[in-house]
């Protein structure tokens, strides 16, 4: 629904995770926009989509944010990690022949396969983040799991999907990445694109106009779960990333795969599925005391379940949550570990 249908009831502000730690008011920003007033806060929203889930009028706050951020271009100083990830993705379109995401992973691949796997920015995260976890194994694990289902995927050396440029309002930069990738995907002839990051899934599936199937790896594996023999132990819980959960309504696939692991006990977070709380950061915007407070909340909620491991399906959630676990001096002593579902499942293959 268009924002003009907003009744100004304020449920959005009441439910907004950012409001827990700031004075951010989605309701007021809708009112300001409707009456052509200045002062709309473009950058506080986590674009988690929780408000739209409950809005009585079905106002699409995500689409609203996407629209008002168009060409808004935040000051790059506001972007975390010295905006290095913007620089990397921009280099990819400046030198299109010489750059793309790295594709060197173990396991069996086939450059002619109709199923493509896109690892996303994981190797760049390893290069520039020190958060106590490494990301490259997500790619290795993905190929191992795909191999176990009998698929030798084609490894897609695309450019960055553009998720962060899009949600940062760098519209031209996003469109250039999108054009490159759309052309490359068309030329590749693949029929299915599998990704391991929820952000890539959402971006290719929703923000591109592709005529191929885009799947998060959990969806692909769920379809082939009878081919996977998985065994483990202990208790885990699962965090629905905004991009895969509310944005794409993929809630069951990761849970069905966890249930497939013999010996592993799954417990739900208090706020789960459609109600899952955002990890606290999106598109590298506003990495701050406030976002750390939300990340700590999330980890506390996970520990309260009694689980030893918090699993997720978004590389960025994985980075942000591990970043807080790894903070020095520690913000809080946590016992829980945070792991990507893909590496978790690959370890459990028998």
């Amino acid at each position, binding site marked *: 629904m268009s924002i*003009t249908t907003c*009744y100004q009831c304020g449920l959005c502000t009441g439910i907004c995770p950012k409001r827990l730690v700031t004075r951010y008011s989605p*309701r007021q920003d809708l009112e300001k926009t*409707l009456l052509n*007033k200045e002062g709309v806060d473009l950058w506080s929203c986590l674009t988690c989509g929780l408000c739209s889930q409950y809005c009585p009028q079905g106002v699409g706050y995500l689409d609203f944010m996407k629209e008002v951020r168009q060409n808004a271009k935040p000051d790059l100083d506001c972007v975390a990690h010295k905006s290095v990830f913007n620089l990397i993705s921009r280099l990819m379109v400046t030198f299109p022949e010489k750059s793309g995401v790295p594709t060197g992973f173990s396991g069996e691949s086939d450059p002619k396969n109709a199923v493509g796997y896109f690892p996303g920015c994981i190797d760049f995260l390893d290069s520039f983040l020190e958060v106590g976890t490494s990301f490259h194994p997500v790619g290795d694990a993905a190929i191992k799991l795909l191999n176990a289902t009998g698929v030798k995927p084609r490894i897609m050396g695309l450019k960055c999907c553009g998720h962060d440029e899009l949600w940062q309002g760098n519209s031209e930069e996003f469109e250039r990445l999108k054009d490159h990738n759309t052309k490359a995907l068309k030329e590749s002839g693949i029929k299915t694109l599998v990704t391991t990051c929820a952000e890539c899934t959402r971006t290719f599936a929703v923000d591109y106009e592709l005529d191929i199937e885009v799947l998060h790896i959990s969806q692909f594996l769920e379809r082939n779960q009878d081919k996977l023999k998985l065994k483990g132990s202990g208790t885990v819980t699962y965090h629905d990333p905004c991009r895969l959960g509310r944005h794409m309504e993929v809630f069951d696939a990761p849970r069905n795969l966890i249930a497939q692991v013999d010996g592993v006990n799954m417990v739900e977070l208090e706020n789960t599925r459609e109600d899952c709380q955002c990890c606290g950061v999106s598109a590298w915007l506003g990495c701050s005391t406030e976002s750390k407070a939300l990340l700590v909340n999330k980890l506390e909620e996970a520990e309260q379940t009694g689980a030893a491991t918090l699993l997720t399906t978004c590389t960025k959630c994985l980075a942000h949550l591990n970043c807080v676990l790894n903070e020095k001096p520690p913000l809080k002593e946590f016992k829980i570990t945070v792991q990507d579902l893909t590496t978790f499942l690959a370890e459990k293959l028998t």
Partner: protein
Amino acid sequence: MEKVLVVGGGITGMQAALDLAQLGLSVTLLEREAELGGKLKQLSALFPRGESARDLITAKKQELEDNANIQITTGAEIESVDQKPSGYKITLSGGGASFEAQAAVLATGFDPFDPGPIEEYGYGRLTDVITAFELEAQLQEEKVVRPSTGSPPQNVSFLQCVGSRDRRTNRYCSYFCCTYALKEALAVKKLNPASVVNILYMDIRTPYLYEHLYTEAREKGVRFIRSRVSGITEQDGHLDLDVENTLTGESETLPAELVVLSTGGVSTAGNPLLAEQFKLTLSDQGFFTVAEPPVTSGVEGVFIAGAASGLKDIPQCLAEASAGAIQVSAFMNGRKK
């Protein structure tokens, strides 16, 4: 022959007369004005279905005139009512006829609120401040213009709760103003899509069937500003409205080329005399009190229908007209035993 009196030839009275005749009763319908139709005569399209008020009156009038059991007297006022064992003896004023009726349905309707006394709105002083009823007259001719220039306004503001929910005028909610304002705002948007249309409101009350009009108005770009206007002044050929948007806390001056006052309703001036004549009681606001909802007055054989007992929309008035007819019929059957 036994007879039923219906007082008031608006939509409620007309429908009550038709239903009574349908039930086999002989009806005398009295209307004070020269023409039947009541407030509907001043209205354009009716919510929620958008049918023409004029067409509705024409159709109902035709039905009434075609019915041999209904006698219509317009330009009529009641001079006296005498209760006798055989029924009520009604005498019309001006040396008019007298007749006997065994039961009565009072459907005296309402009067539009006169916003003149609310000084800050400037009604009567500022040419481009009009009432919603005056806008209806324009809409009947499928136009919206500024009285000062005769040209279409680029900027229209509707002010809600004028004469309603205000201890200086009437404390009650007039029930129909939100819905008709939405209807009128949509009509203005349709006639002049480029115009800015604001509705300045405290609460929007659109029960049951009417909520979709609220959503539609928002979808079509009508702007809603939560505020009660504190003053209107004329400035360089347009009006300035002083408002505080209570949702943002900002005070501002809102320009308008046409201001429409969404006036509520009051009880009709004739009610006290009628109450005295039929020994009925009135509420503090001058509407007939109902002893047992929806239409039973507490006085034998006398029923109250439509806005005479409090402000209502047309579908509710029609329902009470039919309820009144059925109650009269039951009462008449009881008399025969």
